[in-house]
């Protein structure tokens, strides 16, 4: 029993939140609204999946929101000039991965702390976005691209399908592959991992590449959903992503936690946003309520362990 609580503490917090909201609002527990929440959650969840890889190595990636904005601008810039979908999206993902690579190299080869390295990248990528877009939104995207944000496959929103694939793949990578094992090992004890002959720098860098590429993937969804790339897109998204990872039970000290919890964490934040809107809670109280619920959820989780 104790073991079940230990593993599923945050799940109980999530179910509790769902039950409370179902009682408070009759539009909450409907198929439409649940699909709506899943679609909204997908952007933060995909970023948080990449963030999980990074945090498991005892790192942090503050640049995710800016990377989203920059790759979104690149994608929209190419597509609005008539390049095919594959080129636009491919270039965006490549740019995201490359920024992650630079982050990783600065951290592993340059010996800069992840917080500072990615804080610098947060500013650089945001500035680059403003330069590239000239501070204006980029519009005029093809319908086929917009489908990625607004479309449905058998009633399931496309962003939700993408999110599901990302989490399934991340789960397999983290639990079934050498890469996953090394990422946990590096976060648990980097020195011991190095001494056992693992190329720590390589695997750490790879975590940042994954984080950058997944930020770019969420840029695809956000840009498609808004039918435009916004120069200010993704501001503050790093905090929501970190919150989702930590709510999901991954410790900031690295080496402990997992991707399933992150999905749950992202859903708690999404459900909370949705519920507060449905209940028409005043914007002043919303921030207080959000903070309190997040803290309570983590406390409940720690209590049950």
């Amino acid at each position: 029993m104790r073991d079940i609580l230990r593993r599923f503490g945050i799940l109980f917090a999530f179910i509790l939140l769902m039950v409370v909201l179902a009682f408070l609002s009759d539009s909450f527990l409907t198929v439409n609204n649940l699909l709506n929440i899943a679609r909204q959650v997908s952007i933060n969840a995909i970023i948080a999946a990449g963030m999980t890889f990074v945090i498991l190595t005892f790192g942090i990636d503050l640049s995710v929101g800016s990377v989203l904005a920059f790759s979104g601008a690149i994608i929209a810039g190419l597509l609005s000039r008539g390049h095919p979908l594959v080129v636009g999206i491919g270039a965006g993902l490549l740019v995201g991965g490359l920024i992650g690579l630079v982050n990783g190299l600065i951290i592993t080869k340059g010996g800069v702390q992840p917080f500072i390295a990615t804080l610098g990248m947060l500013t650089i990528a945001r500035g680059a976005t403003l330069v590239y877009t000239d501070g204006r939104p980029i519009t005029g995207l093809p319908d086929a691209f917009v489908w990625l944000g607004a479309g449905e496959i058998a009633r399931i929103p496309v962003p939700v399908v993408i999110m599901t694939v990302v989490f399934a793949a991340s789960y397999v990578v983290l639990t079934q592959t050498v890469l996953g094992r090394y990422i946990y090992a590096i976060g648990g004890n980097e020195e011991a991992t190095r001494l056992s002959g693992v190329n720590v720098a390589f695997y750490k860098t790879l975590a940042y590449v994954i984080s950058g590429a997944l930020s770019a993937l969420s840029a695809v969804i956000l840009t498609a959903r808004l039918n435009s790339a916004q120069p200010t897109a993704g501001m503050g998204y790093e905090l929501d992503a970190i919150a989702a990872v930590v709510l999901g039970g991954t410790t900031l000290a690295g080496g402990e936690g997992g991707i399933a919890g992150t999905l749950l964490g992202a859903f708690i934040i999404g459900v909370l946003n949705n519920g507060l809107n449905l209940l028409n809670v005043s914007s002043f109280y919303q921030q207080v309520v959000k903070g309190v619920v997040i803290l309570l959820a983590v406390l409940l989780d720690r209590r049950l362990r």
Partner: protein
Amino acid sequence: MRRAILIVLAAVLVLTVVPLYGAAMPTVGLSISTLNNPFFVDLRDGAQAAAKKLNVNLIVLDAQNDSAREASGIEDLIQKKVAVIAINPTDSDAIVPTIKKINGAKIPVVTVDRGANGGTVLAHIASDNVAGGVMAAQYVGKRLNGKGSVVMLEGIAGTSAARDRGKGFKDGLKKYPGIKLVAVQTADFDRAKGLAVMENILQAQKTINAVFAQNDEMALGAIQAIQAAKRQSQMFVVGFDAIADALAAVKAGTMAATIAQQPKEMGRLAVEAAVKIITKKAVPKFTPVPLKLVTK
């Protein structure tokens, strides 16, 4: 002797006429945050036209969005001993030391569009956000014939623009008791949040007849949500600011209306305030610039 008298007479003439001429054509300095933005170019044009009409000499400086450049440009204006300095600050905090310097030189200061967070400013000229909110409410009220359910998307909580536009809208709706404000939620002036928050509100509210967003970004996000839910025939959206994307949406018919600021009026009122100060007439501490409703 005659020569000496002539010289004295000439000197007297010069000494009396020159100051007279100087008094007839006072100089006003106008420092603008950037001219790399059509809004501020319009503001300058309005100011120049007013200066011509009111017979004042206007010196316009472009700070190119650089607080240091703005400060040094204004120092030059102080050296030139202009009669009034009108400032459109690049930053409300960064301008404070400069305003204190102008206060020290005993030159009156007027601020335009953006205010200053310190120093002594005689007059502030800016758009009247409260009136804009009322204007939106009147449009919504008339178009709904005084009956319906309305949603308001708010800007960043605690900002003056969000507060004033919200207050104006709520005040304006008081005239229409048949209109119910069924949801008021913040979307932080952001398009992505406007989309997500509107999606949520659409889940909760089965009947919505109109949406007022406190800026165009949120309005454009809300339109995406409404179209995705295929409910665009049931409601219309009103934005605020008249940004280029919004004007295009109004033209295309996806946005019902947006509220435009009038930068030319702002420039004119700034110069008029400066002239009132020069002629020692009373100027109000705040001069609201009227807004304009833009529809198809």
